[in-house]
């Protein structure tokens, strides 16, 4: 069973089949009709001839019949002309008159036949077709037969029949093909609103959930589908909104009580206790912040049209973390290109990835050393520390959620690098880690450069 993927190809193929079948049947039907019509003309002519021969048949006083054809009719039936012939047969099947050389009947006599009959008969090497008309002359019934040798049939009619296929029969094919082309054009035009709707639909994505398909131009037959799609999009949009709202609500619900706790601690009289608790709250706030980041990332979709200047994003991160580094007796430096480096992606998320890499680096670099940011024109940002580096066998583990080399070490959640990894995935970026000589690690994020 042939299956069609496209309505248009189905219509074209079925239409072509229909055209072929129709043109064959139409030709056959037309040629049959033409034959039928020429036969009728022929039969009528033969009947008329038989009647006109019969008009010249007279009964003599002795009862036998006499045929006295005028000159023009004699010429018509002359042997020399050889095209038409006649015969008169009596009730007993005897041939009374005949234009044939051997005075034979044209058609076998049949006493029971009706008043007018059309017959065809092979005579020698000729085929004679004609009419047999009963007539009562002088009280006796005779059959007057008039026939035409088909080999010498009327040239004009023969030409029409012979030319029919060449001149008329083939016209049906181009007419049907023109009809097919017109149908295709009509159909394509009818489908245009659907194509336009498809183009609009191709814009719909997690970042553009507000787009709806237009229903005004859509053919009524397809409109229920388009309306159903729009309703489905409404439900999807609501789903996305609920997910995004949840992250925002969760952030608010978690951070507000933390703020209360933090402010209450800040008002404590006991300085030693206050400082210890402040550190605890800061650690907890950090974990919650990272968990919220992860929750947000799980629902986050990068707008393919978004772009970010990697250089300025990195500079902002360096500004942000520099005071933290200095507070720990460590330094920060931004190196590499000073020109903007445009890459595909969301600046906020790029910044978070780089910030997590740099916080990681500041935590691990030795006191008195510098964490370096290097931005490359090819869309890569590297963060270099002078810490212990990352052992070969740990290079995949460190990006897993909650993985920590030393679980006893405070201030590390094991979430930072998994956030980096997730942001890299969202941006089709590659994150790599290698060790530096003599010591330290170099984390690199290679983003997709924006091709202008």
């Amino acid at each position, binding site marked *: 069973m042939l299956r069609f993927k496209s309505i248009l190809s189905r219509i074209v193929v079925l239409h072509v089949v229909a055209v072929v079948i129709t043109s064959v049947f139409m030709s056959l039907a037309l040629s049959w009709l033409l034959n039928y019509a020429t036969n009728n003309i022929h039969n009528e002519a033969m009947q008329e001839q038989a009647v006109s021969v019969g008009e010249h048949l007279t009964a003599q006083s002795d009862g036998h019949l006499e045929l006295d054809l005028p000159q023009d009719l004699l010429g018509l039936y002359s042997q020399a002309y050889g095209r038409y012939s006649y015969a008169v047969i009596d009730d007993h099947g005897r041939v009374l008159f005949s234009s044939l050389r051997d005075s034979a009947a044209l058609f076998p006599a049949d006493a029971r036949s009706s008043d007018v009959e059309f017959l065809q008969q092979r005579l020698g090497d000729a085929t004679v077709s004609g009419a047999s008309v009963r007539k009562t002359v002088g009280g006796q019934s005779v059959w007057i037969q008039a026939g035409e040798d088909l080999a010498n049939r009327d040239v004009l009619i023969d030409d029409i029949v012979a030319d029919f296929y060449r001149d008329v029969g083939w016209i049906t094919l181009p007419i049907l093909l023109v009809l097919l082309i017109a149908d295709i054009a009509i159909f394509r035009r009818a489908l245009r609103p659907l194509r336009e709707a498809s183009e609009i639909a191709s814009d719909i994505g997690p970042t553009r959930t507000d787009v709806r398909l237009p229903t005004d131009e859509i053919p009524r037959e397809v409109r229920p589908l388009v309306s159903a799609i729009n309703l489905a999009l409404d439900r999807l949009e609501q789903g996305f909104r609920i997910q995004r709202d949840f992250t*925002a609500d969760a*952030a*608010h619900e*978690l*951070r*507000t009580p*933390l*703020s*209360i*706790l*933090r*402010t*209450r601690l*800040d*008002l404590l009289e006991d300085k030693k206790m206050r400082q210890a608790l*402040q550190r605890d*709250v800061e650690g907890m*706030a950090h974990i919650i*912040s990272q968990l919220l980041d992860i929750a947000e990332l799980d629902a986050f979709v990068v707008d393919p049209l978004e772009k970010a200047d990697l250089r300025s994003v990195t*500079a*902002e991160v*360096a*500004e*942000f973390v*520099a*005071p933290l580094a*200095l507070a720990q*007796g460590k*330094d*920060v*430096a*931004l*190196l590499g290109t*000073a020109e903007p480096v445009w890459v595909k992606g969301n*600046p*906020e998320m790029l*910044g978070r990835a780089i910030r997590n890499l740099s916080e990681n680096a500041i935590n691990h670099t030795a006191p008195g050393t*510098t964490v370096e*940011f290097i931005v490359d024109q090819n869309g890569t940002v590297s963060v270099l520390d002078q810490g212990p580096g990352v052992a070969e066998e740990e290079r995949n583990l460190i990006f897993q959620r909650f993985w920590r080399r030393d679980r006893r070490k405070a201030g590390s959640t094991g979430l930072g690098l998994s956030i980096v990894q997730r942001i890299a995935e969202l941006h089709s970026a590659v994150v790599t880690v290698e060790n530096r000589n003599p010591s330290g690690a170099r984390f690199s994020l290679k983003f997709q450069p924006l091709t202008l």
Partner: protein
Amino acid sequence: MRLLIVEDNVELAELLAKGLQSAGYETDVLSTVEEATSVLLTTFYAALILDLGLPDGDGLALLRELRHRNNPIPVLVLTARGGLHDRVHGLRSGADDYLVKPFALEELIARLEAQLRRPGHMLGSTLRIANLEFDTRNRQASIDDKPQLLSARETEVLELLMRSKGRVVSKKQAEDHIFGHSGEVASNAIEVYVHRLRKQLSERGAKVQVHTIRGVGYLIAEEN
């Protein structure tokens, strides 16, 4: 000096009020955009501490309304969302500064004072780090209460750094501040002034350090 706190969480609002009172401020607390809008029409406050998530609307809407009425009140925005996007959005709407919850009370007070210690705002106009002071009214630096003579450029750089205490001043920011947006600036001009300022401060016994964050900017901090 009276501050207005607009925060819908009563507990947090009261704690902030308490903290600010112990730092010498008087405070009023409101919890809705509507209340705040009407009160701000009739009452003068030195600064507004504004939470963004309010029950009857977005704090940013209130902020835009204030700026639309040309109310220059310094506004410090508090938010539960720490995204860069939110920050930029907040500052564009007319916030003067921005703190992400949870924040240290100390930090809130420091940010407030940075806003209030501007010419035209009446809080004692002195910025202070360790034994270094800067009076923003007469633009006078002093170390251990002894007035110091600095060049005009050095003074400008010092004021900028001290206003941004605890934060990095980017090189671009410094250039814009010192030279304005017009004219060509030699690429190392700021570097030269910072270098001179650092030398002056250390020679005169200031217990502060002017850090150069290579490729990023400058930051002034207490000496470790």
